[in-house]
């Protein structure tokens, strides 16, 4: 992963996002983990405040406990360190669809103010995209069936859009009632963790509101990097600084990744 250094921070944006994501995980949670920051955050949480966190990857590795950061969801260590490995039908039907996963992580190429996500294409038409993206993967059902989701994405006008090109995974759709009408049984995105702060949905309107700024970040920076008229919570909170223990562990993990 590329590291954006910030003169005002003694940690990188990735590290801040990782620690914030880790702090959102509760001990005993069952957590549907993806690759990258979600893995780092989940492994960090398990090694600090949430030793009983249960990690499950799309590959079927259940309650796994990797010591190194996996490059792919199928890295051998995820299987050898797992309590059990289950088939994809078990992962998606018996674990995810049944509502047994407490929290899932999602990324985004584009996101709108209702937390809807595009990971399919950039451009005007599906058939002839400007940029073809990887696509849906497990995200749409994670977004639908996990009891709640956390979205991790860098904030910029290219990514935070008033209208996204394609809805791959649903946040709150067009607002209140959309999830219920579409049989999406989880609560949806309860937080969006960016390199600037944290956004949370307004309980009434479902619109994402900036509730936290990371240390050293200004409201203006957040507004400048958002493609819609960003609502700001008042008072706005400041995210807790990463502890040195957190940073040491995160750096060790990232260094352990074949992709670092």
């Amino acid at each position: 992963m590329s590291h954006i250094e910030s003169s005002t921070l003694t940690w990188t944006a990735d590290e801040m996002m990782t620690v914030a994501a880790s702090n959102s995980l509760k001990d005993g949670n069952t957590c549907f983990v993806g690759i990258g920051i979600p893995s780092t955050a989940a492994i960090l949480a398990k090694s600090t405040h949430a030793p009983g966190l249960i990690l499950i990857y799309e590959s079927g590795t259940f309650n796994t406990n990797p010591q190194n950061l996996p490059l792919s969801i199928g890295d051998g260590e995820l299987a050898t360190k797992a309590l059990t490995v289950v088939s994809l039908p078990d992962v998606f039907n018996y674990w995810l669809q049944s509502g047994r996963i407490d929290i899932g992580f999602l990324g985004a190429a584009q996101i709108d103010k209702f937390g809807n996500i595009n990971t399919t294409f950039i451009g005007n038409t599906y058939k002839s995209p400007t940029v073809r993206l990887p696509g849906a993967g497990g995200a749409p059902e994670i977004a639908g069936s996990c009891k709640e989701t956390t979205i991790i994405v860098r904030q910029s006008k290219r990514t935070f859009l008033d209208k996204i090109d394609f809805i791959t995974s649903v946040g709150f759709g067009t607002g209140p009632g959309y999830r219920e009408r579409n049989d999406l049984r989880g609560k949806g995105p309860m937080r969006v963790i960016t390199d600037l702060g944290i956004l949370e949905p307004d309980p009434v309107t479902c619109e994402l509101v900036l509730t936290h700024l990371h240390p050293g970040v200004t409201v203006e920076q957040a507004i400048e990097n958002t493609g819609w008229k960003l609502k700001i919570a008042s008072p706005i909170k400041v995210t807790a600084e990463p502890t040195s223990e957190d940073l040491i562990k995160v750096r060790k993990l990232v260094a352990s990744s074949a992709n670092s």
Partner: protein
Amino acid sequence: MNKFMALAGAIHSYVCDGDTIAMEGFTHLIPFAAAHEIIRQKKRNLTAVRLTPDLIYDQMIGAGCIKKLVFSWGGNPGVGSLHRFRDATQNSWPVALEIEEHTHAGLTNRYIAGASGLPFVVMRGYRGTDLMNQTENVALIQSPFADEALTAVAALNPDVTIIHAQQADRLGNVMLWGITGIQKEAVFAASKVIVTVEEIVESFEPKFNSVVLPSVLINAICVAPGGASPSYAMDYYERDNSQYVAWQEVGKNREDFEKWLQREVFAGGSPS
């Protein structure tokens, strides 16, 4: 009838131009050796089904074997993009690539329907997304018991399913273990099945998370040690992450890819 044969013979006998093929293996046991043989035999107009096209289909797409891709996540896992897939979808190179996009859960259930001899199964999913409008194989269905709707997904029944497993016994039964993904369903859903294996053993030993596929399900078994590299075969060899990282560069432009294809596949090199 003897099901043990050379990989070249199995691909020649069981994979026809225009077939719908599924080559499964979810990050583990990806059948690269079989894919390279398909490329060498210049199979064309294949409809290729796989949850994660991964490097295996990126290579077959770049080589011009695939007319239509049915998939759910088309990236280079943990690394970035599949440039041959992008070049084909964005620029129709080397040939136009038709795509049918699903979710992992959706394709998983489409295989389950195929394995179960059903025209469709029901699930929760797709609703509220734009994916639903991009395929004919997903539709709402009303419950006959209550006023509620579910999502129906149509069965997938490949002409040929190809997987890689750790072991076969001399009677032609196959055993795989570790991450077994959707292979069992892909095998049951298919008309014909080719399995490449690391080795032939006298008898199977118990393993955690193992699947035994009786020989009656299988048409051809081909011994192909290392046949899943650069993915991995649990208890045989590890995933070669460096090759996944290197693929970013190899696949990025057409010339480098063509060079790779000549060197690693047509020159009969080992799976790369």
